[in-house]
């Protein structure tokens, strides 16, 4: 399993953003699944395993990105998470701190994004307990 590409679940309700981010990440060599909503993301999480969840904070509902993450973490406690947000608020920051979620400010510097992704994946990998892959 170590040779396979890392799998990233990308969630954003803006189609253009979703598409372009997917392209960028795939170009980088990741396997990316892009979904336009939190619900779709939740479904995807049930069906597949992912190494990283990269989501916009504001999806169809306010802070739904966070809720998504909560549920994702229940299933996959060790999954790396990055939230994209337009503004920081103390509530979000606290939550992110607690759960070990990385926050990135939109609009992002692409290089910063890529760096953060790589970092997150590496650290998750290093701390990961060996887990049987889902079928």
């Amino acid at each position, binding site marked *: 399993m170590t040779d396979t590409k890392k799998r990233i679940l990308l969630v954003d309700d*803006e189609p*253009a*953003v979703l*598409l*372009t*981010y997917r*392209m*960028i990440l795939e*170009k980088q060599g990741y396997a990316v699944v892009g979904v336009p909503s939190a619900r779709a993301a939740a479904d995807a999480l049930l069906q597949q395993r992912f190494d990283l969840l990269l989501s916009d904070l504001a999806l169809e509902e306010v802070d739904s990105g966070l809720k998504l993450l909560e549920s994702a973490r229940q299933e996959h406690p060790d999954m790396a998470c990055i939230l994209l947000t*337009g*503004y*920081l608020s*103390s509530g979000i*920051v*606290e939550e*992110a*701190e607690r759960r070990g979620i*990385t*926050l990135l*400010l*939109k*609009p*992002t*510097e*692409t290089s910063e994004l890529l760096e953060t992704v790589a970092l997150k994946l590496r650290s998750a990998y290093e701390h990961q307990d060996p887990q049987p892959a889902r079928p």
Partner: protein
Amino acid sequence: MATAQMHLQQAKPAGRGEPGTDLVRARAALRLLEVERSEEIPGVLLEEIVGLGFSRALYAEVDFESGQVRPSVSIGCSRQLQQRFVTSLYAADHPVVNVLRSLEPSLLENGPGPRRFYLYPLVFRSINPCWESQRESRPDCLAVENLQHPRGLRLPDQVCRICDMRGFGAVVAVDLGRQQPAAAIGPLRALMEVTNILLSRRFKVEHYFNRMREMDTAIGQLRMVMESMPDPVILTDNQHRVILQNRSAERFFKLPEQVSEGRARAVELNNLLFSAMLSSLAMGSTEASRDLTLIDAIEGEEAMFEAVSAPTLGGDGRRTGMITVMRDVGDLRRADQELRANYERLRATEEAARQERDRLGLIIETVGDPIVVCDQGARPVLMDRLAQRLLGPTDAAASDPATLQNRAKFDAYITAFSFSFTDRQSGKLQLYNPDSESEVEYDVRSGKIYDQRGQLAYTVSVLHDLTAVRKLEQLRLERRMLEIEKFAAIGRLAGTLAHEVNNPLEAIKNCAYLLQDRVQPDAQPVMEMLRSETGRVVRIVRQMLGLYRDSGQVGNVELNAVVEEVVQLYTQQLDRKRIRLESKLKPVPVLVGSSDQFRHVLSNLVVNAMDSMEPGGRLLMRTREVRAADGGRLARVLVADTGQGIPREMLESVFEPFVSTKGERGTGLGLWIVRSLVGNHGGKIRVRSRTGKGTVFKIDFPVVRP
């Protein structure tokens, strides 16, 4: 002894010129003159009588005390015989008494035997009257009277009416023996007369001698009295020459033994002054007084006297000179002068105090705020017009209830202050202002004034109508709120815009990224431009998004909480960049404003700091309370970094829009926005920087009074 032939001449005084009698007189006179005391005279007389040839004679004296006549000296007389001549002046009929009564000699023929006695009376008689009668020109001196108008020896009469001298009286009895009276009497008579004269003279001399002695004693006593007087006493004659002066006077008017020139002059001067004074006083006839200042020749100081002079009169009533007593009034005078000086000083002080009071009153009246001065018992003693409008008259009770209530409130306040231990106090009083007919909140500032002993003397209170100030503050606050609102509105607009723009922008940026290596080399510059410009837009949008949220809400802001929030927001990023964060937050007063805007300001500064630093840099955040120059309170925030710094030429314009240190990366808006936000809250932002060292931003927010 020559026994000259003598003729008896009856009742006729021995005349002069008869050779026998002259001789007798002369001889007797000589002997009698040699006598020292009058007591010796009778003895000498009897001897002379015997010398004339008579064998028996006696001298009977009158005792003026008792009136007795008795022989005191006798020659050849038996006791028996002598006894016959003892009698009393008051006896009825005795030859001796008869003789004394008549003051004429007589011949006594008595009893058996050829005894015939010649009796001669001796009394005090003289041609020359006494000195006193001469002085007073009176003719009735005893001596003269006895001579010229003999009235017989009567005791009461034998005192000189003028000089008080008491006379004497005696009878000489001579036994004629066998001599014939006619012959014997002549020489005897002559002898008696001479004896009488000399006896009288002697008597007079002795009298005056005694008198002189008595007078001498009296003078000595008077002198002592004079000397004992502490005041100078001077007796002067009619030419103002000093006859007599006591020791106190000598101090001023007499030259001491070894005398310096100064002292000699002093004495001279004193004498001159004294004479001058006497001359001026001599005009009057009764006691008069004059002030005289002399120089004490011994001490060398001035001595002030009141000279009281009176004329001295002789026995005849004529002026003989002046007696002057000098009363030392130096102390009195000095005391009087001091009293006067003190009085003047008091008056001057009073005047000065009155002027001060007037000036104070004027100042108080022109201040324009109610001022109340109270004493240590918290009772008003001075109030200006305005204070009286509020609290009623100083001394009397106010009449209307509103004023009474005001007064009560003020009394409570000032009493508490008066008895407190603080020197100053300020407080607030809600009083009814009759001019504006409304309740006004007054800011009261009071201070204490202490007396010399450190006890509370007065309190001074100034009341300040805060409504005007309040109004101003209110206006300012409102304006600021308006600004905040405006900004918020604009922010909201910008934010909304940004938000809308954000997503497409994200996509565009991503596309640019994706395209960059798909483009042909000659199109690279274009690509580059696309990328950078897009990046700029991204950053602008980013800053705008910070303003998006409803940042218009104004409320209480805990600055330290905001700082901590911001720090928390960026902790991850700071860690990632390996920037060490140091925050030292001291207590700051609560501010009024928009927390979102505060947050934006701080976030901006933090981001700027982060961007300027390399990994390993330090970010310092500090807050504390400071005092402004005008005494107001400020909340100060410091954001300092160890980054690249801002070049000096840019420092001035760094807060202007579209000025950036980040080159193309910067929007140039960040600090401009920050300054606007800071300004919204009435604050001030300053920057200090050194290239290569770092930058410090300092923001002061005024504490708005709630």
